[in-house]
């Protein structure tokens, strides 16, 4: 199979050209094998910088085992796949564009937070108004709280299962036939 040059392949990837000849990304196992077999000849720029630093980040055992300096195999692998021509390029913005992006992102996050907060407050308000109504019923009805007690009674209420007629699919608009006022609860035999 003829393989394309990396530059060509990356271009094909960018422009989404469907290519049957496109070189498949080499399998992970093969790359692993190659990198593990290959002896690192020179320290990369990163390792060189680390060695010149006053503190070494090399593990003690790694330092002891290897005579020379070797780059971590995992780092090699990560670098390989990051810089592979078939890897989509990273999202790079200029300073201003990044800041604009950040601004929009923050505004969106803020907007969502405000919406959540509003929803929460609305739920709280509803709950509290219901509670207030109950309290009013208990104390202000003038019957010593009898009505309240009766209304709090759970007898004859669906506690475990609901009739299937109630389980209407939630829709954006009200149903065509509206409320069925004639419906009665089926008698339990």
């Amino acid at each position: 199979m003829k393989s394309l040059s990396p530059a060509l392949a990356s271009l094909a990837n960018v422009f989404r050209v469907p290519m049957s000849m496109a070189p498949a990304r080499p399998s992970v196992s093969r790359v692993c094998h190659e990198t593990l077999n290959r002896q690192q000849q020179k320290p990369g720029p990163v390792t060189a910088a680390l060695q010149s630093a006053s503190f070494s980040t090399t593990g003690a055992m790694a330092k002891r085992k290897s005579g020379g300096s070797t780059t971590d195999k995992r780092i090699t692998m990560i670098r390989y796949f990051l810089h592979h021509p078939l890897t989509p390029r990273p999202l790079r913005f200029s300073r201003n564009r990044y800041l604009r992006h950040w601004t929009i992102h923050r505004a969106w996050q803020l907007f969502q937070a405000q919406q959540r907060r509003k929803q929460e407050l609305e739920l709280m308000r509803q709950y509290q108004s219901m509670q207030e109504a109950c309290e009013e019923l208990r104390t202000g009805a003038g019957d010593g709280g009898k009505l309240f007690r009766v209304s709090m009674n759970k007898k004859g209420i669906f506690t475990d299962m609901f009739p299937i007629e109630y389980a209407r699919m939630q829709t954006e608009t009200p149903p065509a036939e509206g409320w069925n006022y004639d419906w009665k609860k089926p008698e339990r035999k």
Partner: protein
Amino acid sequence: MAHCERASKPLLQCLRNTYSRGIAGAQLQTRAFQSTASVREPEAETTNQPFHKAPDPSLVTSPRLERRLLRQGTAPIGSRRRRAALQDSANIPFEQLPYQCFQEARKVLLADREEKLKEIETMRQRLARQESLSVEEAGGEKAKKSRVTAMQLHLERLKILADINDPLVKRNFEDGEGDMSKPIYRFLADRKWREYRRKILVQRITQMKVIPDVLPHCDPVVDTRMYFGKRQVQAGEFVEARASTSAPKLDIQIFEGGEKLVTIAIVDPDIPNVEANSFDYKTHFLAVNVPISATSTKVDLSKLLEDSQVVLPWLPPVAQKGSPYHRLSVFIMEQKNSRPLNFEAIKAKETSRDVTLRTLQASYHLKAIGAHLFRTQWDDTTLEVMKEIGFNGANVELRRARVEPLPYKRRNPSSFR
């Protein structure tokens, strides 16, 4: 026309067209978040001198002028293509850039900021009312104090929330131009410090056992950098004896408002004591009543006042030949309620350098808020330094003591086969 200029021309044309349409609307509604908006540089210097005489490093494109700039010591800013684009751009301020989504986002953020400012105002009034209440009205000393503290914390938080979404604040902070007197920049700096530098510091002082050896506990809340001369010393680095003959400079960045009085102590817990077969403590430097604030961070230990601050002057650290490395730990300790300590009394009392820092901490109610660390060991310059300071163990080196082996114990032969 240079190649780069030709390349950036279509882009510029495009930008200019959008600007002419977009600016008129944008001008009205855009406003910098902060009252102290970034001041636009007046183009006075460019009009005074022709460009080829004094080229601007952010605008220069021709290689000849670039070379001249480089010879003068200033590198051109950005790529040549970028500079060419900037030459012809309208140079619109960032907040007025005509991007629709961006401007809508700014509107949302500005509205939120207005809301936050209102909240701050109400919070201030409530705080003032709370503070003006007498103890009986507030329901006890303790309740009043806790309420006031909670309100102050909330107020600080609101101040940060008001500014945290401002892209210009972010940009200023990233450029290192943040004004540390403002809470938002302090907050950002603190967050950045905690992300990496504080972790490193805490790791060094705990792994090198400074924390249980010198002080029982320390939770660093101030960022400390140390310089010997011009060289910055990372926490735990080895410093040559020659370099540490003069007292270091400290850069102590606190992330809270207001001024603090701190005590600075440099302690070496590794002075070898051959007679006792153990290690001694030695205080290499002790100064009290050092004022620190978020904006004035530089403390030169050699320039502190002899008559009101320095209790024990700088003693250059030296490590005897063969001795294990010495850890010189720097501790920044906050004085209680930021009240000045009585310098004369301390100066009269603390004449010995052998007192441990734990004792000092207990007797003067100090609280460690910052730490740093460097190490010394025997090197080529140590001998000279020892002679200069009159170190009395200069002609002696330490060798490992012979360990007496355990007596040979003969096994019970009857149990052998």
